[in-house]
């Protein structure tokens, strides 16, 4: 990591921050003549400051500076037009006319749009698959429901990378599914390294994050409410439509949040199952940092993503003001 060029003030800021933090604790202990309950939050606050707040400040700093530490908005211009730097260089070497022939490079924006589209697909399919599953699990007449809950949880005990790699051994050319297809005489099919495989991997990994919030809000529902609906003339389907679904909305919103967020930012799944054929915004950020070594552009891309996430979070929060559907929304 030779390109870790932390600005000098960052380490000073860390030191001063730490000193201030310890000073505040000492002051609080002396003023209250002992330890107050709120002091127990100190380790957590310290953790948050070092690993959440400071990185955010650093990302903002890098995003707004160039390699020499001067303020610039070039990084955001490069997001909009990936050929921006090339054109600037051409301008100084060959003049305006040649520079003008370089078209806008749309790769960054396209990747973002593509990521959002994939995340949308993943969320929509997870909802379509997950809601009935949650409905089934929450039905207290179904003895199978609790078994299903356990079956959903077990894969989550395994590491996310392992689970994704396990899909490789199923889908690859010499994998289990192709072996089976060949055995029954259909012949091998290209299953991996395409958009569908990536989508499959994403849905597989994120589906539980849809099912559980919905399941939680459904199982909290008073069964008397659906009885009341039936009493007033709803058949089972209308009860679902008019009472159960509207009342499980907080869980659905929470589920959407918890699937959509990691879907937009995912980078490992497209790399393993997409084999570089499908590039998502997470991949782009990762390679901008680690392959191109451009920390400033990488930070700008991260910042754009963070802002997008914050906007969608605040929209979702409006729809679920009490945060009933558990989770992060």
């Amino acid at each position, binding site marked *: 990591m030779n390109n870790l060029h932390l600005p000098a003030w960052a380490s000073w800021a860390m030191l001063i921050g730490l000193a201030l933090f310890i000073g505040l604790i000492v002051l609080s202990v002396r003023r209250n003549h002992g330890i107050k309950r709120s002091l127990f939050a100190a380790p957590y606050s310290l953790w948050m400051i070092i690993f959440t707040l400071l990185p955010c400040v650093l990302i903002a700093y890098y995003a707004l500076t160039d390699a020499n530490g001067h303020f610039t908005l070039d990084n955001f211009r490069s997001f909009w037009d990936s050929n921006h730097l090339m054109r600037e260089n051409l301008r100084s070497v060959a003049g305006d006319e040649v520079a003008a022939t370089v078209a806008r490079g749309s790769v960054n924006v396209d990747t973002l749009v593509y990521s959002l589209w994939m995340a949308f697909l993943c969320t929509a399919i997870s909802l379509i698959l997950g809601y009935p599953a949650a409905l089934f699990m929450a039905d207290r007449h179904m003895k199978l429901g609790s078994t299903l809950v356990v079956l959903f949880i077990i894969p989550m005990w395994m590491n996310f990378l392992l689970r994704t790699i396990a899909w490789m051994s199923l889908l690859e050319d010499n994998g289990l599914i192709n072996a089976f297809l060949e055995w029954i005489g259909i012949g091998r099919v290209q299953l991996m390294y395409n958009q569908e495989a990536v989508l499959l991997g994403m849905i597989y990994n994120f589906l539980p994050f849809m099912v559980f919030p919905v399941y939680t809000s459904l199982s909290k529902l*008073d069964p008397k*409410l659906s*009885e*009341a*609906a039936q009493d*007033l*003339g709803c058949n089972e389907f209308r009860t679902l439509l*008019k009472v159960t679904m509207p009342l499980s909305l907080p869980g659905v919103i929470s589920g959407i949040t918890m699937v959509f967020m990691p879907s937009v930012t995912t980078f490992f799944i497209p790399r393993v199952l997409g084999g570089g054929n499908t590039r998502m915004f997470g991949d782009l950020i990762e390679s901008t940092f680690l392959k191109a070594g451009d920390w400033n552009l990488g930070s700008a891309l991260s910042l754009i993503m963070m802002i997008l996430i914050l906007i969608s979070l605040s929209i979702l929060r409006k729809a679920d003001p009490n945060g009933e559907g558990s989770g992060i929304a």
Partner: protein
Amino acid sequence: MSEQPRMIHLENISKEYDGVTVLSDINLYILKKEFVTLLGPSGCGKTTTLRIIGGFEYPSSGRVIYEGKDITDLPPYKRRVNTVFQKYALFPHLNVHDNIAFGLKLKKMPRAEINRRVDKMLDLVNMNGYGKRSVDSLSGGQQQRIAIARSLVNEPDVLLLDEPLGALDLKLRKEMQLELKSMQQQLGITFLYVTHDQEEALTMSDTIVVMNAGRILQIGTPKNIYDEPKNAFVANFIGESNIIRGTMVHDELVSFCGADFPCVDSGFGDNAPVDVVIRPEDIVIVGEDVGQITGIVKSVLFKGVHYEMMIEAGNFTWKVHSTTMQPVGSKVGLSVIPFNIHIMQPMREEKPNE
């Protein structure tokens, strides 16, 4: 009331949950425009009976007859009964107006007609102008009124009420009892009411059905059940009672507490063991030398209208209600007129509930 036709008839209804019998062989009919109360301690099966009529439970055996038709297999939404649930079960995502309009909207009624009926209902339950409020902003009593309005707006033939006043405080409960009763008379709807509160049952009902351990013990008018309880359980559950083991010496003479008492019951057989039930207000305190038995006052409680005295006489502590107080420790005589001595068959050992 016998001139009214039968509305609902339960025929040999039994219900088991995982091998545990909750209801055994319930036979009961409810007349049109009647106010019937199922009364019993918790776990006696009264709510299950109501839920079977509502269609939320399926009986293990037996039939539910509704105006002559078997509706045992009909789902709740096809039955012309509506239920007021114990904890109201109002829809939290709808406001007061939409809660009440819920059933009417399903019937695809024109909007103007819906609004007219909802307003009429709000009027009936004294909740005018509350239409736009969210149900969470209402007090328990107000929610109760909306729950009743939500059911009544569908103009059901029968309204099932599952301990609807259980969560209200005493004063509000008494008010609502009277309101419910007058609503029932005004609308001419059959009410089937479930409660464990004997006073509530006595106040409101035309007919009381006393239940215990999944069986019907007695069906009758409030006065009939209070004055002529069929067995010691009913006597004890409805009002306060002194229940004592005795022996029938012969017809119209019973022996308990070492003395013989003339009574009006007969047909139990000579020297048969019986339960004797005497209401506290039916015991008369007289002079020490003129009473049928004598006792010593053990404690006195002032109860407002009357004094409640515990008087030990003949190895039994009698609960006596009287408007005149006797000091603790004084010797008194007790006497009961024959008409107020109720003789019943001794109870079989009651199965403990659940």
